[in-house]
């Protein structure tokens, strides 16, 4: 049986690359050391100038040299498509399609097989760009990301449009954050730092565990005297509804890359808020043999009090994936 492969999105190291503490070589070498051979980039984060100005060819050459040197594989380029580039008017349809084609070309230049489309992009734009992507051997994957999920009508609309197009250059890139099943500790701690009383933050965490409808939780927090940050904390439940990983099974033929989102890895190599054991078993059951690219997003929740330790967090996430991939399915999940 083909195995799930391990990769890293360089998004994970954003605090370190922002200040120049880590270079592109540091990032790729670090991933290689963890045995995570797949590399995903947000094109315009890693390559200055993209898309409006263009990219220095020497940087692209460096990218290919480093991948070869560290025996890594280019997996995906996450593009943005700024359809609000013009103040007060949306970018016209044809220009949006042309912009996606440009990102297909950039992907081909980087040697990746997939480009990530943000979930707000209309299915018609992607369908119109699909023939060009096919020609270049690139697949366009829409990122299914909380608060959206596989049963949301917007995603169903995408799925229908993809089927109707008949193109296999269109697919999905699920972000594992949509399967959040416990309130992340780093979120709770941040909300407490900005003034949420502990009795309210404890209540929200418990209400999330109990799967109470977010609107009830928000009202209850208000009645407990919660304001500002307390309401904001309760409102996160609206956007994180603990969907089930098995919802991916209907879509397996179009799932080609995975964002291994995580907020905090414990020293014992678990992510307490996202059910990775269940996720990996579902993916194996669905015959998934693409990459899971670690995507550390705890950074923005801790950076106000400490410099995020992105490298150690990614190391732990990779160790966890190593442990979970290829293990027999426990009886409880086999049914």
């Amino acid at each position: 049986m083909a195995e799930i492969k391990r990769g890293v999105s360089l998004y994970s190291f954003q605090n370190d690359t922002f200040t120049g503490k880590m270079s592109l070589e540091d990032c790729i070498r670090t991933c290689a050391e963890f045995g995570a051979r797949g590399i995903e980039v947000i094109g315009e984060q890693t390559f200055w100038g993209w898309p409006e100005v263009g990219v220095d060819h020497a940087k692209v050459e460096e990218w290919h040299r480093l991948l070869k040197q560290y025996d890594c594989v280019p997996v995906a380029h996450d593009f943005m498509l700024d359809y609000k580039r013009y103040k007060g008017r949306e970018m016209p349809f044809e220009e949006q399609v042309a912009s996606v084609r440009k990102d297909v070309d950039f992907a081909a230049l980087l040697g990746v097989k997939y480009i990530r489309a943000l979930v707000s992009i209309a299915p018609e734009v992607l369908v119109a760009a699909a023939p060009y992507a096919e020609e270049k051997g690139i697949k366009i994957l829409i990122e299914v990301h909380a608060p959206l999920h596989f049963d949301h009508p917007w995603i169903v609309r995408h799925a229908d449009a993809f089927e109707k197009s008949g193109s296999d250059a269109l697919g999905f890139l699920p972000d594992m954050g949509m399967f959040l099943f416990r309130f992340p500790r780093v979120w709770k701690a941040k909300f407490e730092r900005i003034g949420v009383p502990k009795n309210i933050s404890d209540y929200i965490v418990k209400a999330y565990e109990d799967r109470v409808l977010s609107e009830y939780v928000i009202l209850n927090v208000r009645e407990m005297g919660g304001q500002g940050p307390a309401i904001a904390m309760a409102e996160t439940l609206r956007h994180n509804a603990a969907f089930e990983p098995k919802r991916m099974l209907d879509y397996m033929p179009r799932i080609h890359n995975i964002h291994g989102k995580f907020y905090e890895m414990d020293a014992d190599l678990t992510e307490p808020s996202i059910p990775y054991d269940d996720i990996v078993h579902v993916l194996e059951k669905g015959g998934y043999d693409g990459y899971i690219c670690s995507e550390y997003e705890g950074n923005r929740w801790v950076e106000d009090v400490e410099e995020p330790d992105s490298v150690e967090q990614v190391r732990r996430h990779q160790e966890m994936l190593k442990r979970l991939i290829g293990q027999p399915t426990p009886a409880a999940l086999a049914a």
Partner: protein
Amino acid sequence: MMDNKMICVDGFENVVEGGETTGFAFLGRLPYYRGLGLSMIEDIAVTVDGEAVARGDVRFTVHGNTYTLDQMETVYDDRWNFGEKATIGVVRAGGLTPGKHRIEFAVRMRVSYLPFVPTTKDVKELDLAA
């Protein structure tokens, strides 16, 4: 995100043009995990020692090009890259006195996929050399 990395501690100085001090400048970074085309920078608000700077007095310089905020709204061929230090200038005859000044720097950006328009702010006390 990156709030506390927006204002750089290096590069805080008075601007001297033709022998006259016409303002001051500091280095600022975009609080985001990617860059943005300049047309998507909706506003840059600067406060110095508690006093708000008028929008028309703010200047933005990258890649050797200086823009007003109004001009930036239609710049489609230049970017504020990820982590890139731009020079944030303020027109102010005589500049600032040497010593410590409290600088507030807020950026509002138009992000296509977000259902809101975020503003991110940093505050730092910077030291202007004599």
